[in-house]
């Protein structure tokens, strides 16, 4: 498949930012608070540093194979076997993620606004949007990200800033929360919140230049880190530990306590609009890239015939967990503990193989 689409640096940056930050509206903040207590914000800063170091290693790999995505790199290293392994790792890991987060977004809708509607009914509307986005293709998806994501995250930041008068700065103490071991050793596993950087591994053919790839990665990680840090910081200031760990949807709770005088209350309605858009962008993009990776892995010529079967597969898998408790447990126990492996450990392994066996175009040259 030859790429004719070229994506701009800004479009790609906002696309990756949304992929990393969409789960802020679900339970990512809760996970950070739960792992480090009142030091959730320190853990968030620590994870940004780890993500930057991880991405530096990723860059080393992609520098050897300029303009090639992770599946192409698999092909270069292990021919068809390498291609299929790389493709399947991406497809299965992202299928796991999209299913969990689709369920998370559906439960959020049901708990927060559509209490009576059946979950399958709500899911239909999400899936229709995802199918439509996939039919429009990558160019439309990333352009929409560029158009809306800056606005969405600006609104999120404004919502957080408006809660400033109600913040209690003493809630940040004890400074090291649950302890330095919990932050810097156990907390390192929470690098998984940056697992969506993996979508960038499929973008090099669309970005064309390596410098753009590098710039997109660093900017996206830095801005996402900023968003995570201020979100967990404000949440910690408003909801003191240990009560903070009770919250199912921390950012929704933050928006709920916001009131500007007697007239402007219930501002969480604005929040509902922005998180639904974020969720749909996230789910649409994930589904598109799963299909894209599938066609590339198995050398299929067209994407469109796979859209509806993939949507049905995702919908069915999403509805498999019998309750929100099970899906939440899978997210906490597996997603936040192991999903960093395909994103940061796999490139490291590939880089090691390249160095040992002297693989790769640029290195050989």
């Amino acid at each position, binding site marked *: 498949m030859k790429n004719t689409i070229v994506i701009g640096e800004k479009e790609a940056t906002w696309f990756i930012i949304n992929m990393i930050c969409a789960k802020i509206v679900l339970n990512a903040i809760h996970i950070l608070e739960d792992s480090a*207590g*009142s030091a959730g914000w320190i853990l968030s800063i620590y994870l940004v540093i780890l993500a930057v170091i991880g991405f530096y290693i990723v860059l080393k790999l992609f520098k050897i194979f300029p303009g090639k995505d992770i599946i192409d790199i698999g092909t270069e290293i292990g021919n068809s076997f390498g291609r299929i392994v790389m493709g399947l790792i991406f497809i299965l890991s992202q299928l796991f993620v999209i299913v969990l987060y689709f369920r998370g977004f559906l439960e959020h809708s049901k*708990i*927060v*606004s*559509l*209490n*009576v*509607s*059946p979950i399958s*009914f709500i899911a239909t*509307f999400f899936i*229709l949007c995802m199918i*439509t986005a996939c*039919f*429009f293709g990558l160019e439309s998806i990333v352009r929409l990200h560029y158009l809306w994501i800056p606005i969405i995250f600006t609104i999120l930041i404004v919502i957080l800033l408006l809660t400033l008068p109600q913040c*209690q700065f*003493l*809630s940040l*103490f*004890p*400074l*090291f*929360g*649950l*302890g*330095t071991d919990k932050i810097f050793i156990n907390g390192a596993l929470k690098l998984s919140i940056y697992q969506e950087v993996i979508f960038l591994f499929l973008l090099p053919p669309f970005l064309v230049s390596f410098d753009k790839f590098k710039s997109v990665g660093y900017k996206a990680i830095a801005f996402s880190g900023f968003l995570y840090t201020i979100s967990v910081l404000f949440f910690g200031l408003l*909801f*003191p*530990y*240990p*009560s903070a760990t*009770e919250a199912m949807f921390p950012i929704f*709770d933050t928006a*709920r*306590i916001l*009131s500007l005088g*007697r007239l402007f*209350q*219930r501002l969480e309605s604005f929040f509902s609009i922005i998180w639904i858009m974020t969720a749909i962008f996230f789910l649409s993009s994930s589904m598109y890239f799963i299909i894209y990776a599938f066609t590339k892995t198995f050398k299929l010529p067209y994407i469109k015939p796979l859209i509806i079967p993939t949507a049905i597969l995702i919908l069915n898998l999403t509805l498999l967990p019998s309750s929100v408790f099970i899906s939440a447990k899978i997210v906490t126990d597996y997603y936040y503990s192991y999903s960093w492996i395909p994103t940061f450990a796999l490139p490291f392994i590939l880089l090691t193989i390249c160095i040992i066996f002297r693989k790769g175009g640029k290195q050989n040259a």
Partner: protein
Amino acid sequence: MRKILLKVHSLWFVVLGIIVCLCIPLTGCYDAREVDELGYVMAIGLDKGEPGYVKMTLQLAIPKNIAGGGGEKSSGGNDTSLTATVETHSIPVGLNVINTFLSRQLSLSDAKVIVFSEELAKKSLEPYLHSIARNKDFRPNMYVVVSRTSAEEYIKSVAPKLETNPSKYYELNFNSFKYNGFTPGTTTHDFYFDIESLDKQAIAILASINKFSSDKEINLEASTYKEKNKPYPFMGDFKAGDLPRDSDAKTEIMGSAVFYGAKMVGELDGAQTAYYLMTTGKYNYANWSFTDPKHPDMFFSLNIKQSRKPEIQVELVDGKPIINLKINLEADILSIQSGENYEIPERIGEIESCAAGALNKELMLTLDKCAKQFHSDIFGFGKKAKYLVWTWDQWEKMNWQYIFRYSQFNTEVSLKIRRPGLIIRTVPSSSSDQSKKGSQ
């Protein structure tokens, strides 16, 4: 080719348009709740019921009578609210039961206040608070009230005269702490987190029905001035229900209910609640009276504001907390009954030190009462004590909730009078003693 592409694109827009249009009617199918089909709860009251039960009282708005806006009478001249009481195991089930005799589905989204009876609060509020936190319909800015009478009696006695909308009445009445300092203004958000917190205890608004039905019955027996060793009561030396007054409005709020965990352990009067507000930095402004230093039978009044956040330092000496507290206030003169010319710079210090001394003395009494008698750190000194440790384990080992009772307080109140109002010098009337002395 171009025409074909245009057709394909147009088709997509048509499909997209149909999907978007379908979204509008379809999303309303299951969750549709029309505004005129809902019963809006404004106040929820909980009393101890039969064993295993709680008595729940709801006050609901009657929207057709509220229409017409503010004023002393509703547009139709009818009641603007109705109450309903049921015995139930829990709040959500109680709502269901009430819907067996009220036509509209109940909505809690406009509830302004939750009232617990003192009896229930002394038992424990924990079984009800989690239910409130779990339910998204309960707003986090709902006021938390403990009624010295039953919650049912309190809610049924609320009869706003200046507002047609009881919801607005609650909102304005419970916000009055911002300009009188007599109540803590606690909301469910604060209350819930303080109940679970290890560094601060909870406090709620104290409410009641006034005990005097006519001006002939009014007496000062229930005032707290005697326990403070004062010769006579000031207006803050009362708790809800005991205020010496006669009015058509039977209900009143004054003072606060102090909690240890989820159990109520004591009460503070209005003035003590103002010290709580000053110590936590939530105090805005209020009018205070003090005995004139030169004329013990006369008073001077100040409008006192909190100029800066309180300065709090906590240290541990031999495992016991030493708490240093400095409160910075500024004031404007409202009245000087004696006619003494305290406004001149040489004499302003006399009433400044008199007011600051009186405030400091009562502040100490309030802090000691909470620590020694209630063992409850409602002021949140524990938040400052967390500075002393690095991790949560160390904080838990400190056992602040226990050691707080052994606290030693060092307090300082700094009060600076800034403005005299519209009079810069007091000239005594011609018949007064001072005027005669001057003429001699």
